[in-house]
């Protein structure tokens, strides 16, 4: 009886270690801002298998601060990667792409045609949480509006979502009339969502920066991946999804 239990234990541990061996081919863990999903999902990287993990840039940075060690971190701003670099958690960040903040509305039956409409009674707005770049950019736009309009717009904000996916989802389900997202998000959701541009003087500077995470056990592959996104197939995939060169 005891012998059989021992055999079972041995078989199990052999099986587990076999799993460990087979997964030792080059796998690159990339933590990226949710808005990059349409582009990175289609980017083919030749030198390693890439595992993508998407969330708000702030949450990904918090995971790294709490001890998570992806190989590459890509944020929808430059502040978060630079802060992590100052803390020694990532190496010097590299600008990858630029994007633009737009007002997104449903394609059909939109009640909002521009920023001024955001202050109308009964208009429902979703924006990002203050800590996630897409929310901080939206706040910077709203902050520049006239005091009266700003107050009414803020009163119409019905949800502060953790990332762009939440904003797009609320729009697509008719839960809100408008939301601030990136142009590329509106484009990826294009049959149902339409993007409205606003005055250039209100436009925040949206830059994506990537950094190799300190302590990665495959620094070369990680650097190659970032390089590929700057100029390579990855860069082509970014352009094809509407991201502009940095």
């Amino acid at each position, binding site marked *: *009886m*005891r012998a059989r*239990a021992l055999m079972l234990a041995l078989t199990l541990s052999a099986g587990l270690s076999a799993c460990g061996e087979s997964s030792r081919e080059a796998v690159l863990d990339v933590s990226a801002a949710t808005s990059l999903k349409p582009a990175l999902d289609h980017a083919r990287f030749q030198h390693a298998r890439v595992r993508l993990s998407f969330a*708000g840039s*702030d*949450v990904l*940075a*918090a995971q790294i*601060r*709490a001890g998570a060690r992806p190989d590459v971190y890509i944020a929808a701003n430059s502040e978060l990667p630079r802060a992590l670099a100052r803390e020694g958690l990532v190496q010097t960040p590299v600008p990858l792409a630029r994007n633009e903040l737009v007002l997104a509305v449903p394609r059909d039956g939109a009640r909002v045609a521009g920023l001024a409409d955001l202050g109308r009674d009964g208009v*429902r707005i*979703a924006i990002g*949480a203050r*800590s*996630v770049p897409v929310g901080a950019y939206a706040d910077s736009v709203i902050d520049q509006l006239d005091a009266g309009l700003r107050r009414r717009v803020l009163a119409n*904000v*019905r*949800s*502060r*979502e*953790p990332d762009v996916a*939440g904003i797009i*989802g*609320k729009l697509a*389900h*008719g*839960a*809100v009339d408008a939301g601030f997202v990136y142009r590329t998000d509106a484009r990826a959701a294009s049959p149902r969502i339409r993007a409205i541009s606003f005055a250039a003087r209100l436009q925040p500077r949206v830059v994506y920066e990537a950094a190799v995470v300190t302590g990665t056990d495959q620094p070369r592959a990680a650097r190659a991946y970032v390089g590929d996104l700057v100029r390579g197939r990855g860069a082509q995939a970014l352009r094809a999804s509407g991201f502009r060169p940095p």
Partner: protein
Amino acid sequence: MTRPSAFTLVSMAALMLTLTFLALPIVAIFTDVAPRDLIASLDDPAALDALRLSLLTSGLALSIIVLVGTPAAWLLATRRFRGRALATTLVELPLVVPPAAAGIGLLAAFGPLGVVGSQLDAAGIRLVLETAGVVAALTFVASPFYLRQAQAGFAAVDPRLLDASRTLGASELMTFLRVGVPASRAALSAGAALAWGRALGEFGATLLFAGSLRGVTQTAPLAIYERFGTDFTGALALSAVLVLLAATILVAVRLATPEADAER
């Protein structure tokens, strides 16, 4: 003294492993940051708003669950009817449905474009992105925890007791109130505690269906997620409060109904 069998030893090791694995994250919430810092970071109006909203919405959800769920569970437990097995399964379904799927489902049903939601909208009733929507999400995910326990509790009541009550001329309502409910008190309160705990912790369905707005729909779990990005200590502090609250609920039910242990 007899030597324990190999299987007993394995079981003991398994129990130790289980307890360690389950307790470690809970303990870590309290040991990762000094208690003083935890308390200090709770002194934040946004955190207090989130806790207040969590208590309000979970309390409302629990009231709805108990008021509607108790007679429903009574019927499921005491009557044989066509489709009863199907009904029991349906009641348990939210236990295994992923909360994100529940949120999408609620949107599809009660959202402005949804089957029922468009009618409600026309009548001026809105759930999406409103406090009422949080209550709906919590009710959806938490009700099976109560219904299961209530159904099992009612089913375990000696049928002769119920028959005696009916033979003595008591109405079905009286039998339910005077015999069924008191005899199942332990199961009902255990179920209510579990449902309340689940409602307090709800995250995915709430975020997708009700969104996240301070004071309106941002419950404590949503506030934890929002703080995680900027204020890890603050996120830990709120987590600690929720853990303490959940533990208090469980312990209170254990103390109030000691027979609950014996019954199982």
